[in-house]
């Protein structure tokens, strides 16, 4: 009764006048339900494989773009190239490419399922073959995925097992991500708050003051100049992004190559780069090993092997430069640990006279002093040195970088820096003006005269 009533209501809703009990009710005359089901799955399999084809095509384009060379100077191209390489890692290009076969595997599974389903309805004997192969394939796949997830050494790695491993590892990373997000959010909030208060109390400018030496947080995103927010002086344009990408390139190259000429090229470029705290690891140990290789340790004190004098000088200079800059910018704990491990196996190398090579001897002497905390070692024999001009100017700028934290910590200059100043100022003919300017700044520090910050950071200190 109810059913008939329902039919009549349905018919009238469709606009037909009900003449009989089941006269106007539309009857489904399309394909069978199983066919619809099978076709849906087949279409989804087809779409999945087409999607995979699209991603594969895009992937080819991405690779082409990555491999293409750009215009510009060799330096610019190098920096851009490193950024592209980093982008590949940051955006997990590997993972995307590894996930591509996953789509294909899903498409294959859907195809197998659809075929088995269809054939099961049509003919059970034929279906048993397809079902047998599909289930065997599925079982085998599950087996190798679980084996590869449990053991990384298993050679049957699949994208799925890699993802499982990634998810398991994600636990700690996930927490870190969340923390970073929270910090970023609070920074944004603070920023908004500052803008709001700044608009409110516009006339009251911040009190100018000299920032504390060890209270330096480094550049935010690697592009802003840290000096730009000091009030009362024109912002100095230091391109932190450039230093960052240079030092990233150096880190990467050191990791990839052990060649002597590559190491020499790196040692040559290090004094021209600022090792600011944004750079995680200074390759100190590596350069110390290079320096040790240049020495013949069988004799006491160790002496430089023949033909390796330049290598020894360059690596020692790079070491001194990195250590000095690191101490000037951050008194990092990691840095201290690395230095302690180096000084534990260090032998004094700067005492020998290296065939009159003052540059090498003075650099090694300074290195000895850095590892021996300056005051404990024997003092340097500045009077008998004759420096080349590039070495002399490097030495003066390096010692000035060292003098600033030394003054703040010990309230006096180490005797060797005093010796260097006296030696440089007494020279006849006098050294280039930049060296003199550096020495005068060091004397100013000793007399507790605060050097004008803008003069110190300007390219020409005269």
């Amino acid at each position: 009764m109810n059913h008939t009533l329902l039919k009549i209501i349905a018919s009238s809703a469709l606009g037909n006048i009900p003449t009989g009990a089941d006269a106007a009710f539309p009857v489904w005359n399309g394909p069978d339900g199983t066919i619809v089901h099978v076709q849906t799955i087949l279409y989804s399999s087809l779409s999945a494989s087409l999607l995979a084809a699209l991603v594969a095509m895009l992937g080819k384009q991405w690779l082409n773009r990555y491999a293409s060379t750009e215009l510009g100077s060799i330096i610019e191209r190098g920096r851009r190239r490193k950024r592209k390489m980093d982008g590949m890692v940051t955006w997990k290009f590997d993972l995307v490419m590894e996930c591509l076969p996953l789509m294909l595997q899903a498409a294959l599974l859907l195809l197998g399922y659809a075929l088995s389903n269809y054939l099961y309805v049509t003919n059970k004997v034929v279906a048993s073959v397809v079902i047998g192969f599909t289930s065997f394939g599925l079982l085998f796949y599950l087996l190798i995925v679980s084996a590869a997830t449990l053991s990384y050494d298993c050679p049957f790695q699949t994208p799925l097992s890699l993802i499982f491993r990634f998810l398991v590892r994600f636990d700690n990373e996930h927490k870190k991500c969340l923390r970073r997000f929270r910090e970023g959010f609070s920074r944004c909030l603070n920023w908004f708050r500052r803008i709001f208060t700044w608009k409110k109390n516009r006339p009251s400018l911040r009190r100018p003051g000299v920032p504390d030496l060890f209270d330096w947080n480094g550049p935010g995103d690697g592009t802003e100049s840290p000096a730009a927010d000091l009030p009362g002086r024109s912002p100095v344009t230091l391109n932190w992004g450039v230093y960052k990408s240079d030092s990233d390139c150096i880190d990467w190259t050191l990791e990839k190559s052990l060649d002597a000429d590559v190491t020499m090229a790196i040692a040559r470029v290090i004094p021209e780069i600022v090792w600011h705290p944004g750079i995680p690891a200074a390759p100190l140990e590596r350069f110390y090993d290079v320096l040790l290789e240049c020495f013949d340790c069988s004799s006491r004190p160790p002496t430089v092997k023949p033909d390796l004098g330049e290598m020894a000088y360059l690596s020692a200079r790079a070491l001194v430069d990195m250590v000095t800059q690191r101490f000037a910018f951050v008194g990092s704990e990691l840095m201290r640990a690395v230095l302690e491990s180096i000084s534990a196996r260090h032998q004094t190398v700067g005492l020998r006279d290296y065939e009159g090579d003052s540059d090498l001897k003075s650099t090694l002497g300074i290195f000895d002093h850095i590892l021996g905390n300056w005051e404990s070692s024997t003092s340097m024999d500045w009077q008998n040195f004759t420096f080349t001009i590039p070495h002399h100017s490097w030495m003066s700028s390096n010692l000035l970088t060292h003098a600033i934290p030394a003054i703040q910590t010990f309230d006096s200059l180490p005797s060797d820096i005093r010796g260097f100043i006296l030696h440089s100022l007494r020279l006849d003919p006098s050294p280039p003006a930049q060296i003199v300017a550096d020495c005068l700044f060091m004397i100013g520090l000793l007399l507790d005269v605060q050097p004008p910050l803008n003069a110190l950071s300007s390219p020409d200190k005269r």
Partner: protein
Amino acid sequence: MARSLPGLRPSVLGATDSAHIGFYDKFHRIADDHDRDFVKKYDGDLDTTLIFVSLLRISTLVSFSC
């Protein structure tokens, strides 16, 4: 004061680019090797993927027709 320290470096050293050029020359050489391997690996993978896709598409179309 520490913030102004970086300003000392390149100027004092005369800001010659020769060391940079020497270094980046080496860098490019190593990066070329690295990139060649990198691109070759993924290019091969993508070729395999595309072949597989076409096979799969043919088999799907065959099963449509039955």
